[in-house]
């Protein structure tokens, strides 16, 4: 142990923090690979104030401030490390409630981690308590814009009326009317998308202990269509079946109008720290 601390060519990458009593039994388990499996495959359990931080060693040549900044710009490099970070935290979170740390929490000395655990004890314990027996579930909402637009025309009497009128109008008038119809449809589609995501958030919130809206990047497309909303819910394990059933109902109710719902998880509670 002491020897470890003297190696100044490496640093400590910290994944998450949990209660020592709960993490101790995991020591002997087969963990997924650490963030740098080649440089040091071992996991370290750093204890302090009844809490344990799970860490592994990383070479400073790569994880030092300047080196890391350069590496992070390489999207492939970062994506692979992000995946590894996530797998480790997910593995532990399945067993006990832990505070997931943000990607890239790195210490130079083991004693600095111990100090941090001591300093932040209250905050960490209160988060652990809040997360106990709960998991984060993600709900992504996608839409097929063309189908949403179609559904809107059949739903809106005003739009149907206009469409009929356009068919009887002179070519010049019809052109202008069609322009107007297009704008109205796009408007109503936006309203409809907002309404649907609002409804999903509200109904699933009732079955959870927290709800967060994640950022959706502009023009974020996926294999299921445009991404229109990403939500995260903190769900008690005991209530998950109800939560899931409600998500299924919502998916069925909105499938006809071009919406798709995707459930992801369980996640470590990244969005509820």
């Amino acid at each position, binding site marked *: 142990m002491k020897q470890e601390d003297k190696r100044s060519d490496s640093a400590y990458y910290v994944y998450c923090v949990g209660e020592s009593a709960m993490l101790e039994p995991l020591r002997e388990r087969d963990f997924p690979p650490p963030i740098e499996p080649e440089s040091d495959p071992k996991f370290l359990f750093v204890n302090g104030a009844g809490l344990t931080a799970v860490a592994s060693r990383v070479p400073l040549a790569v*994880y030092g401030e300047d080196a890391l900044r350069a590496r992070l710009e390489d*999207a492939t490099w970062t994506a692979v490390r992000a995946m590894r*970070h996530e797998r480790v935290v997910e593995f532990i979170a399945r067993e006990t409630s832990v505070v997931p740390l943000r990607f890239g929490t790195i210490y130079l000395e083991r004693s600095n981690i111990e100090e941090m655990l001591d300093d932040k004890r209250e905050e960490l314990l209160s988060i652990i308590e809040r997360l106990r027996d709960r998991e984060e579930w993600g709900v992504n909402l996608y839409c097929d814009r063309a189908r949403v637009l179609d559904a809107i025309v059949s739903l809106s009497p005003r739009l149907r009326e206009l469409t009929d009128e356009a068919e009887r109008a002179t070519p010049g008038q019809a052109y202008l009317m069609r322009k107007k119809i297009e704008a109205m449809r796009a408007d109503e589609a936006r309203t409809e998308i907002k309404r649907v995501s609002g409804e999903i958030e509200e109904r699933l919130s009732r079955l959870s202990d927290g709800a967060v809206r994640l950022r959706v990047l502009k023009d974020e497309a996926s294999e299921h269509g445009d991404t229109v909303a990403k939500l995260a819910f903190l769900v008690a394990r005991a209530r998950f079946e109800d939560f899931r059933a409600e998500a299924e109902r919502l998916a069925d109710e909105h499938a006809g109008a071009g919406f798709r719902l995707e459930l992801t998880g369980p996640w470590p509670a990244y969005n509820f720290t």
Partner: protein
Amino acid sequence: MQLSSERTSLITARPPGLVDVLDRILDKGLVIAGDIKVSLANVELLTLQIRLLVCSIDKAEQIGLNWWRYDTNLTTRAERAEAENVELRERLAELEREVRHLSAAPPEAQARGRRAKPARQRGASKRTSKKSRQ
């Protein structure tokens, strides 16, 4: 509605996709200032870059390059995929050589056999056009 044939419309992603992972771990999770300052200020840009990458991976997935989703040891699997790629390319080259060899050898019968359909069609259309002219 008829949509009941789809049974359940809920998609469950297990294991989660890379985009969902990045959404969480790159700018979520408890922030504790460690000894190394990690500037994820450019997270937006980084995330965008990675989205582009994922986009091409999603395409790659259709041809079986989906290792990052299912394996625990990403590097190992990537290397394995790479090795598999090399092997496949070699086998493809071998097959191509064989095809070339075959089509070069007893030309008449084989070549005609392979082009049987279009040849007959062309012949047929010629005949009919002749007939119609008559």
